[in-house]
């Protein structure tokens, strides 16, 4: 392979004039983490609401939940980001659209909200499945104890369901981290974006991508290890995942 390897490139100054190429990549890594965390909060909030809707006995509620999930699941994430970024400001009243377009850090907010809503549909499906997996007696016992529906969810169903779906939620969080890289298309220069920029400035393609790869692997290993501890401490005794 006639390719000029140069692993020292990371310590050479980058063309922006501030620091080395490594600094560039690390700033991309932070942006990836920041975007993913905000998106995950959004995904959890909306996913919980929609997941509850889907599990309610009311036909209308579960229909709304079904439509929400189908809407966000049947379009590519890239197309959804384009809709939020390019289409939404044009369809709003003029003043609101202008305000949106001039928002500082627009790619960051669009990416976090877009990825967050996209992932919320998947969180909703997991949560609905988690609630459905609980024995029917739990809900009935909550009612028999005089808890309202809201109290039943708050104190009985949700704490159980969330602990049961911990493993799939871990992989959904990792998907959120990975999906932030799609925002490169709306101009968010996160980790993949910085690796691409480094490749264009320095022509050291494989070094740049190797560094980004190692950083993504590191995120994965840290999250998986951390979640394993959390899963173990939150496991419900008597369930397969429990002790």
């Amino acid at each position, binding site marked *: *392979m006639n390719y000029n390897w140069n692993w020292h490139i990371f310590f050479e100054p980058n063309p922006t004039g501030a620091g080395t190429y490594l600094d560039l990549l690390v700033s991309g890594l932070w942006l990836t983490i920041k975007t993913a965390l905000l998106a995950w909060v959004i995904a959890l909030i909306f996913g919980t609401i929609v997941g509850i809707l889907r599990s309610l006995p009311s036909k209308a509620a579960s229909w709304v939940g079904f439509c929400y999930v189908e809407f966000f699941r*049947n379009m590519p994430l*890239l197309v959804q980001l384009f*809709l939020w970024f390019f289409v939404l400001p044009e369809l709003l009243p003029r003043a609101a659209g202008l305000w949106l377009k001039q928002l500082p850090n627009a790619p960051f907010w669009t990416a976090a909200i877009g990825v967050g809503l996209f992932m919320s549909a998947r969180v909703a499906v997991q949560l609905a499945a988690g609630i459905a997996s609980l024995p029917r007696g739990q809900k009935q016992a909550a009612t028999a104890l005089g808890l309202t529906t809201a109290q039943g969810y708050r104190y009985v169903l949700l704490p159980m369901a969330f602990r049961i779906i911990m493993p799939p939620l871990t992989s959904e969080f990792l998907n959120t981290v990975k999906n932030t*890289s799609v925002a490169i298309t709306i101009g968010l220069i996160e980790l993949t974006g910085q690796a691409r920029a480094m490749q264009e400035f320095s022509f050291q393609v494989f070094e740049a991508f190797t560094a980004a*790869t190692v950083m993504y692997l590191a995120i994965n290993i840290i999250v998986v290890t951390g979640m394993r501890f959390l899963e173990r401490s939150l496991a419900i005794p008597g369930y397969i995942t429990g002790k």
Partner: protein
Amino acid sequence: MFGNLDFDVIRRSLPYLFLDGMSFTLMLTGLSALGGLIFGTLIALMRLSSYKLLGRIAGLYVDFMRSLPLVLVIFWFYFLVPYIGQWLTGASRPIRVGAFTSSLVTFIMFEAAYFSEIMRAGIQSISKGQPAAASALGLTYSQSMRYIVLPQAFRNMLPVLLTQTIVLFQDTSLVYVLSIPDFLGAASKVAQRDGRLVEMYLFAALVYFVISCLASYGVRRLQARIAIVR
């Protein structure tokens, strides 16, 4: 709010969108699913084989691919495939590889990791008595896989495999980052040429939505039919 929109731009660009763009997307989806299924099955067999080293290698490959974002993998292969081609053909310089080949290789290698997990679950869902009966009948390992285990595993996992193919169909839109005219790329080219972002992106979203909805409805029907048979 739709006052100054011109939806005629969609009608004018329909032939380009579907004959060039959508046929690229569908071809890429179909071939990647097929290639991913073949390689994925091989990887699943490696993971379940009694040679520990083989299983370890396959497991590492799957974990590695699954922890990387698809966009990064697309970039990796876009730059790597010319060198792989040079190495395979023994040419003196990195060979030129077309956009389609490059993205096809990417998606096959990437999806193989995901398909292999599905096939592994499928193979494990076959009761142990079946391969045992096969070997009692004198079938070799490859015969028992070929005639007994894999057909059933494939059949049991068909709905999941098809769902993954729908995900793949949506994911092919990411070749946009290489400026390849797949369906979304074609829509985006027209959008930027005519300054009609709103119309074109809304239309692209609608097309993806309708196709994915119909496909997942079909998968649900299929799942119901298979469930009754078993």
